[in-house]
């Protein structure tokens, strides 16, 4: 079993082909000069990226208004989700690593729950609750609270409900490895508690905070299940793509997918660089 047999190696090779085939075809057919993302190959074109619609009756993704609007909606969700996940995740890490209190084990356990709750259910529960609150407040104060109705603020809340778990885990893990003698050393050299936090502890946590932020950004950008339930009139990119995919295939979808993959690769590379620096 130690030396891999030929058939075992072949199997592993097939596995990797299986793994990359879907992504490869998505990328390849983004450049096919055809109405449909399917064989035969009709020649290379960049029309699906930059075209104005004269050739295929549909503009390239970089000029496609609704597509760009959905991209913008995704960014509008992902940035607050990432920022909140890092800020609150850091606070959670300090609570879990620096304080002892009754019920701490239960609280730490509960923070993991969102990982085993299907995203659709997180979505409907938050939708149902926020609607009840909105209805109640409307009846009481005759106020219309739009942010509690389906829309981007609610999407932010829904995504945060489970992305915060990931951020908390990542940042806690690093805080746990922090040598508290460093804080004592700072105090010993004359720093007060805030200065110690700012100059010693937070710089040490920075790689984990940046990493958690990037992961949160990507997870938010790609989330579909929770977003689908909570979305209003501004669909973020995955929801928009889903609608387009149901209507029919177009290489425009391949093009936007490729843009998305390249963007993701850039963020993931950044993440890898940051986490390498951390060690």
């Amino acid at each position: 079993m130690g030396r891999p047999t030929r058939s075992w190696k072949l199997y592993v090779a097939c596995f990797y082909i299986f793994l990359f085939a879907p992504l490869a075809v998505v990328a390849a057919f983004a450049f096919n000069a055809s109405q449909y993302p399917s064989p035969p190959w009709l020649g290379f074109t960049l029309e699906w990226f930059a075209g104005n619609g004269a050739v295929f009756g549909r503009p390239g993704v970089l000029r496609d208004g609704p597509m760009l609007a959905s991209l913008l909606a995704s960014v509008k969700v992902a940035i607050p989700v990432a920022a909140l996940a890092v800020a609150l995740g850091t606070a959670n890490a300090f609570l879990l690593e620096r304080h002892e209190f009754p019920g701490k084990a239960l609280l730490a356990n509960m923070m993991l729950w969102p990982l085993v709750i299907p995203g659709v259910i997180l979505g409907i529960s938050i939708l149902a609750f926020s609607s009840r609150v909105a209805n109640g407040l409307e009846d009481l104060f005759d106020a219309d609270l739009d942010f509690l109705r389906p829309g981007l603020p609610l999407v932010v809340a829904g995504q945060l409900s489970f992305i915060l778990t990931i951020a908390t885990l990542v940042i806690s893990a690093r805080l746990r490895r922090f040598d508290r003698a460093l804080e004592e050393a700072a105090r010993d050299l004359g720093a007060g508690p805030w200065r110690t936090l700012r100059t010693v502890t937070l710089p040490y946590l920075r790689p984990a905070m940046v990493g958690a932020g990037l992961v949160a950004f990507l997870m938010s950008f790609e989330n579909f299940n929770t977003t689908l339930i909570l979305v209003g009139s501004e669909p973020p990119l995955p929801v928009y793509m889903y609608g387009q995919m149901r209507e029919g295939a177009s290489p425009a979808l391949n093009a936007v997918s490729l843009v998305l993959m390249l963007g993701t690769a850039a963020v993931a590379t950044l993440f890898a660089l940051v986490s390498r620096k951390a060690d």
Partner: protein
Amino acid sequence: MAEIADLSLARVTKRFGAHVAVDAVDFSAARGAFFSILGPSGCGKTTLMRMIAGFEMPSEGDIAIRGASMAGVPANRRPVNMVFQNLALFPTMTVGENVAYGLDCRGVARGEREARVRRILGRVGLADFIDRRVTQLSGGQRQRVAIARCLVLEPTILLLDEPLGALDLKLREHMKIELKRLQADFNTTFVYITHDQSEALVMSDQVAVMNRGRFEQVGSPRELYRDPASAFVAGFVGDANRWPAEFEAPNRVRLSGGATVAGRRFGPPSAGPATCFVRPESVALAPSAEALSALENRYSGKVVSVLFDGANSTLLVRADAGGFELRATLPQTGALAGVEKGAAVHFGWSAEAARIFAA
């Protein structure tokens, strides 16, 4: 006029629940002294040091620095700096930033700060390392950065918490000399805690031997070595053969195997069980009994094994009568330098060299 001590502790006690970690410790360290606290792990020396640094507050008693009580003064406002066991250099900063940290906290102007950082790094021989990351330094260099980071603040007292523990043996020997030199150069009071008696003896002006939260004895290294005041100190400082025994006379004991030893008793005359200590280097070895006739205690025996270690070589010898074994230093220049296992030897020691404590 008596000078005010740099550091004085009055009946300092620390309790953690029912456990007394530090039990009514009194001492004072004179200005410019190298003062060591020596004790086994768990004896309370770390707690004591953390109280001096301000990370723990004494349950009772008072700590004063240059006559000023430190009660209620937080760690960041004490004229004391500490070299941590693992050094605690800030990994996110360069050498220069580490050393500048304390000055920065005090609000020292940038120009002066840089000048002082450069000056101190020059004095510890790290002038060219100012922009290096601390993770790129060797163990000895890291050590010097940790010391420079404290000394740049010109503290009244520098605390050192077993800073040599993580180094390998060779570097440790080197750093002992280096630390002593730095202390003499800067003329700062050093309070050094360690469980390694050799570190304490080599570097210190004064050593306090600590055991179970109390100081057993405070004295110069020579005093501790020659005149240990308790069985614990006799056993902990330097090497010693140690035998359980029974008082026969005020200054004579019978070992459990039957041999009698004349020695020097500490404390009031007593009867009953006792412990007898003889240092390996106090044992004289000779091929014949005549050479030992000046000694009060004389025996003959067989070499059980030869523990060769250059100048530190010792013999393990079993007495022919009296049923005891001992370790004796084997001079590599004497008549017995080439002695082999199983050889018959004569050995003995003066009454002055045997210490007897009531057990």
